């Protein structure tokens, strides 16, 4: 997570303070990680379980089929084997008719093979006549007492196959055999003889035939109709009285293939009854499904699940980190901004939504900062302009000059004009210094400027005339105070004041749409175009028209940016200054003033 890391470092690089922790249990990070992990694991487990059980079923089916197949093959091989043994006994029986016993003894060895322990013929008294073995048979036991002897002589069957037993025809030898016995008859020297023939099979061939590999540790055993074991791979164990765990019980041994419970699991059992012996060949395989294969596939599945779980965990931690990290950074950033710390907005990277959120926040912070700067500048300007208003209100030069004029008039004895001038002066100052009010009515403003004009006209020796008109409708409209006086002063000083006579000043107040408009016209010398072009610009280096600039700014501050002065002028023709103000009849709140 190189990117996330970088951001993380950035956010964490700030001096230590109480920070929101991403490890809180209900933090978005933890919740997202937990939910993602939970859902994915559940899905993985569900899919695995389905696949697993399906595989188990398939494997069990194939186990059952192959078990039945192998069992049938083994059963027919053993059937074939018994048939072979019967054929051998037939051959020996035929030879009995052809050769005398002594001759036959020498010829019988051709029938000897690994899996045949003994072939022997006894007469009806149990005396051995012929045997494959040259050694002397024991005389101390009576073979007529043996079940294979009595059984063969009494049963009507062609041959008899015994249970496994210990044969003891020779002293000190006790081999385990299965005895095929039959009664035989032969003719010798014209008389007929009867006897019993035996073929003793040891288990080597049967063991070999039964050792065919069954799937998954299965095995094949042989049982007779009574349920006694003829051959079992764990015969010694059964003889010792310990029954193998996975041996199916007798009632489960029905012909054909079936599935039974036993030995801590399901067993596939296949039973085939032989035709040449009263035996049943039973194939048993435990149906463990996937577990059959020595835990091999089992392990793979477990490995896969665990690796997947680890991957999901890592992935969900990573994804939720990606989601939460920018938010976390944003939280830290907001905290710092809200405390008023001066921080450069940090770039927010990560997922798209968080990036957008961060961008918006950054834009907002920038905008707020701009607004703060603007407010501060405006405050400063307001402050300055108020000082200037104060200056205008009590312009000392104007006072000195006026008082000089009064003194001069008084010396010349012009009482009437002295009275008129002092009266105008007193009225002028009364209005100028009228309390803390910033706004007055248009009528009052015009009154004010008239007082000023009366004084100035007297000082300038009636070298100009003036006229004030006002629409009744706007007489009571509100206007910032001392708006007209600087304009008129400008008109007198730079306009009509330069003419020796015939100067004219027209002051008018009227409504223009939703605005109140004052206009001050003079027929003075006008303003030079290059001066006119910059007359309202805030340029501290230009000292000309400073009164006009001041008024212009004050109006903008008090009424809004769209209001202010318009100056039109032509050289030697005159100048028109229009004052545009909102038409309002109630005094606005004292906006932003200290």
């Amino acid at each position: 997570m190189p990117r996330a890391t970088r951001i993380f470092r950035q956010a964490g690089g700030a001096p230590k303070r109480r920070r929101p922790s991403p490890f809180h249990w209900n933090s978005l990070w933890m919740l997202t990680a937990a939910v993602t992990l939970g859902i994915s694991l559940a899905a993985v487990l569900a899919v695995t379980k389905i696949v697993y059980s399906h595989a188990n079923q398939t494997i069990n089916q194939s186990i059952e089929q192959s078990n039945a197949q192998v069992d049938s093959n083994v059963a027919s091989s053993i059937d074939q084997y018994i048939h072979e043994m019967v054929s051998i006994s037939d051959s020996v029986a035929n030879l009995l008719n052809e050769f005398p016993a002594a001759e036959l003894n020498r010829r019988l060895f051709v029938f000897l093979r690994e899996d045949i322990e003994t072939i022997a013929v006894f007469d009806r008294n149990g005396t051995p006549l012929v045997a494959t073995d040259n050694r002397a048979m024991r005389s101390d036991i009576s073979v007529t007492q043996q079940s294979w002897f009595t059984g063969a002589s009494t049963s009507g069957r062609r041959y008899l196959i015994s249970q496994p037993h210990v044969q003891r025809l020779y002293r000190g030898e006790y081999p385990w055999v299965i005895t095929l016995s039959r009664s035989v008859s032969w003719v010798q020297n014209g008389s007929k003889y009867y006897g019993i023939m035996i073929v003793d099979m040891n288990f080597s061939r049967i063991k070999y035939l039964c050792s065919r590999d069954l799937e998954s540790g299965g095995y094949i055993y042989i049982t007779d109709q009574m349920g006694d074991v003829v051959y079992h791979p764990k015969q010694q164990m059964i003889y010792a009285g310990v029954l193998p765990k996975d041996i199916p019980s007798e009632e489960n041994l029905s012909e054909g293939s079936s599935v039974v419970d036993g030995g801590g699991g399901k067993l596939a059992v296949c039973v085939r009854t032989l035709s040449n012996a009263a035996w049943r060949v039973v194939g048993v395989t435990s149906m463990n499904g996937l577990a059959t294969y020595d835990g091999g596939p089992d392990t793979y599945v477990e490995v896969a699940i665990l690796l997947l779980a680890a991957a999901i965990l890592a992935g969900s931690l990573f994804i939720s980190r990606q989601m939460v990290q920018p938010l976390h950074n944003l939280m830290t950033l907001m905290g710092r901004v809200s405390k008023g710390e001066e921080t450069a907005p940090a770039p927010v990277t990560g997922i798209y939504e968080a990036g957008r959120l961060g961008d918006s926040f950054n834009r907002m912070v920038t905008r707020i900062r701009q607004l703060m700067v603007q407010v501060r500048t405006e405050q400063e300007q307001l402050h300055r302009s108020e000082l200037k208003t104060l200056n205008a209100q009590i312009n000392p030069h104007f006072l000195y000059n006026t008082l000089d004029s009064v003194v001069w008039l008084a010396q010349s004895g012009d009482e009437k004009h002295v009275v008129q001038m002092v009266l105008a002066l007193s009225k002028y100052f009364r209005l100028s210094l009228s309390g803390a009010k910033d706004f007055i009515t248009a009528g009052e403003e015009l009154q004010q400027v008239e007082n000023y004009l009366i004084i100035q006209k007297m000082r300038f020796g009636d070298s100009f005339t003036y006229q004030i008109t006002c629409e009744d409708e706007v007489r009571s409209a509100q206007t910032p105070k001392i708006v007209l006086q600087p304009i008129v002063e400008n008109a007198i000083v730079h306009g009509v004041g330069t003419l020796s006579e015939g100067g004219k000043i027209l002051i008018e107040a009227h409504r223009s749409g939703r605005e109140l408009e004052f206009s001050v016209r003079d027929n003075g010398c006008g303003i030079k175009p290059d001066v006119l072009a910059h007359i309202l610009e805030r340029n501290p280096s230009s000292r000309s028209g400073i009164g006009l600039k001041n008024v212009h700014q004050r109006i903008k501050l008090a009424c809004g940016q769209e209001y202010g002065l318009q100056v039109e002028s032509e050289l030697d023709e005159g100048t028109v200054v229009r004052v545009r103000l909102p038409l309002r009849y109630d005094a606005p709140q004292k906006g932003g003033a200290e």
Partner: protein
Amino acid sequence: MKKRIALILVLVLLLGAAGCLAGFGAKREYAIDLIVKGTNMDFWKSVNGGAQAAASDYRATVTMTGPAIEKDYQQQAGILKSSVAQRPDAIVLAAADYEKMARPVQNAVDAGIPVVMVDSDVDSSRTVAYVGTDNLALGKKLADQLCRQVKGSGEVGVVSFMQNSFPAIQREKGFRDAVRANSRLAVLDTVYGYSDSAQAEKVTEELVAKHPKLKAVAALNMWSSEGAARALSKLGRKDIRLFAIDCSPELAMYMEDGVLSVALLQNPYQMGYDSVETACRYLRGDKVGDKFTDIYSVDITTLFDDKYEQLIFPFES
């Protein structure tokens, strides 16, 4: 720093997953050492047969080790020590000496390896269990058979196999106590064949020669019995009745010859099976305890009964 915590968290989880894999991924197979008294002897081969059967039933691997023939305990102690060094999951042991094997057995237990005793116990309370014949009962049963068939007064010889073997001591004690209680027969001093039939044959011949009034001989294990039977057969003394513990095909032949009157059968196969089963169940966490295996008595009339012939004659297929 938090990133490091997260990293450690993931690593721990991965390690845990790996641990789980090692834990239940590999299907656990118990490795069990079976240490007997003589690997070449039929009795122990039969024990091993039962042990292997149990091993296949309980998914375990059983390895039989021990001296080739039964000798003194020192060789077995050395084998036990090297077995402990291999760290099997459990050891099944037939102690060659009741007292002297106690220390090596306790060392094995101290090393964290559970020990199950089979056939021959050891003088220690720290073994898991004893699986085998109740030797006291075996000796007593032998005496009962003898007392039933040998009446009146006379002398009885005892051919044992080891002085310090716990089963030998127990059998002899059971036998002597029962004879003393139930008959007027005098039991002679015990002679020892050291689990060697030739040696047993020799000491039996000496015993017969020394004691003309000898009416019966009790032989306490297979090699003692075989030796005694050979001696009596060679001497042609069918008047001296032989009562044996254990029965081999050779002894069956002597029984058919009329030399051996009664043989008591143990079930070594069952001992092997049950001891390994006990070890496996103990390793699984089940509760296990001592287990006495079956004892049967056979004479010439029952020798070839299915049940006994199956025990006496090995089914070597």
